[in-house]
């Protein structure tokens, strides 16, 4: 009897210790949340960022490492990459008006003062929404970059007053101010087995979106914000600002995230892998530039891609033969800064 009581106490103590440990865990990427961000949303995003630390990536051909400019494509290096581009999060009802917009300096000389991306599509270019019966719902947008360009256009240095965070200076597209909305947390699909927002597939989706939007914090002059291009006629998304001119823009960043997670997380089930595969292809289908061929993997990976798989079976179809090099467009991702 006494033993049983002791065991129960020990178990209770252990559970409390574990729960306290999980609660006390903080993400390595620190986002400052405005007071209007719903607590459920900020805690979910923080859980994703904590999870990011444990994701296993496999960058088979080194393309992700090259484009992210990191020594190795792993969680340890991706977290500082993200932190440089994402800092402050506001809610979808955040009012962008005279009460929140600050003019910190006037008569400011910006670098590349006459070079701007095509401004007509900028707003839509950095704003992700999802249509719901009740109307469009914000997924995520990179507000910091847009405000930086607004300041550059008007030769003033902008700032943003954010309740719960304070005044945020905007000296570069890397101000990293993101707006998030309910669209980031709605079910991925109505199919049974895909409705749990706590599932890791949702974390991959939200992190993919976060990395995509973070790429909008890069670039300078005409390439500032890595703004999307209007998709050409005949494209699935023809006429919409849903494509990338370069092969190193937000869609490629998102696609590489999906691919390297799918290759690296060996315990993914076939359904999860298939969802990641279609997310990757949807993102890559928007890249208008040809892609630079990655390096041959150091260790043979017969299932790295379709041609590796077929060649490994000695089938070697003609469409897998090396093609003549085509011109790859990649933009300089160095951000301009005051």
């Amino acid at each position: 009897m006494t033993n049983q009581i002791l065991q129960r106490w020990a178990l209770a103590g252990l559970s409390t210790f574990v729960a306290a440990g999980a609660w006390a865990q903080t993400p390595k990427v620190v986002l400052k949340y405005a007071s209007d961000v719903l607590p459920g949303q900020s805690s979910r995003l923080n859980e994703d960022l904590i999870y990011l630390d444990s994701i296993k990536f496999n960058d088979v051909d080194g393309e992700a490492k090259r484009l992210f400019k990191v020594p190795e494509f792993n969680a340890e290096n991706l977290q500082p990459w993200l932190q440089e581009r994402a800092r402050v999060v506001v809610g979808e009802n955040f009012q962008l008006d005279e009460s929140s917009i600050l003019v910190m300096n006037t008569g400011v000389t910006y670098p590349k003062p006459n070079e701007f991306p095509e401004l007509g599509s900028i707003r839509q270019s950095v704003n992700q929404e999802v249509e719901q019966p009740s109307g469009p719902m914000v997924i995520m947008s990179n507000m910091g970059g847009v405000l930086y360009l607004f300041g550059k256009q008007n030769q003033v240095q902008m700032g943003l007053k954010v309740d719960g965070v304070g005044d945020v200076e905007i000296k570069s597209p890397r101000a990293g101010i993101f707006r998030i909305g309910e669209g980031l947390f709605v079910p991925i699909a109505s199919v049974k087995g895909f409705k749990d927002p706590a599932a890791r597939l949702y974390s991959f989706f939200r992190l993919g979106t976060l990395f995509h939007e973070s790429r909008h914090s890069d670039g300078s002059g005409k390439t500032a914000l890595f703004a999307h291009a209007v998709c050409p006629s005949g494209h699935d998304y023809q006429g919409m600002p849903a494509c990338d001119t370069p092969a190193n823009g937000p869609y490629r960043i998102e696609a590489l995230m999906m691919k390297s997670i799918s290759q690296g997380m060996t315990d993914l089930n076939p359904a999860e892998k298939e969802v990641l595969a279609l997310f990757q292809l949807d993102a890559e289908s928007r890249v208008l530039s040809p892609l630079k061929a990655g390096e041959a993997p150091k260790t043979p990976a017969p299932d790295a891609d379709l041609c590796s798989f077929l060649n490994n079976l000695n089938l070697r179809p003609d469409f897998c033969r090396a093609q003549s090099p085509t011109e790859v467009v990649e933009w300089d991702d160095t951000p301009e800064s005051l």
Partner: protein
Amino acid sequence: MTKPQIRMMILAALILIGGGLFYFTDLARMSPMERAEEKEARSQLRAETKDEGEQLKEIADIEKQTKADPTPAPEPKVSAADAAILEFKTYTQGVINEMPRLEDLRELPASETHGTPKVIREAAAQLGVVADMVSKNSALKPPALEFYQKCSLQGDFPTSVRALCLNRALRLYAELHKGVWEFDRTQIPAQVLELSKRL
């Protein structure tokens, strides 16, 4: 006829009668469903080892025996394997029917096309279910190949969906037929093929 020959004939007759008795008493012990399965299995075994004339004769014999059996005839039964294939084919036909079309993508508001649109996410989940079913039952690979081939040839499907289907079709074809699926290049645009190579 010599004595040893007569002995051999009697022995052979006894073996035949005994075997027959064992066959029918064994059948009689079974439930109607088990009996039908047993008969099917035995007739399949014979079909593999004997010529067509013998097979037909034996099937006729079994049918005669079944008619003579006083227990009610079992309902026509689809084997579990066939049922799984049928279920899979029904499901995948539903996936084909529900798959978003290009016109659905082009009608979306611009802001929704910035990220992966909901219709593509739904398609991803449906394709995820298909992949899951195939991974759990290798008998579904041939109908899965048919599904992926059909999906990759659908001109009004989104490029990403077609590319995923083409990738899966080429992989499955290689696995099942030890060769490369020689698809009609005029039916699959270069961008679908290029994209399919990224997985």
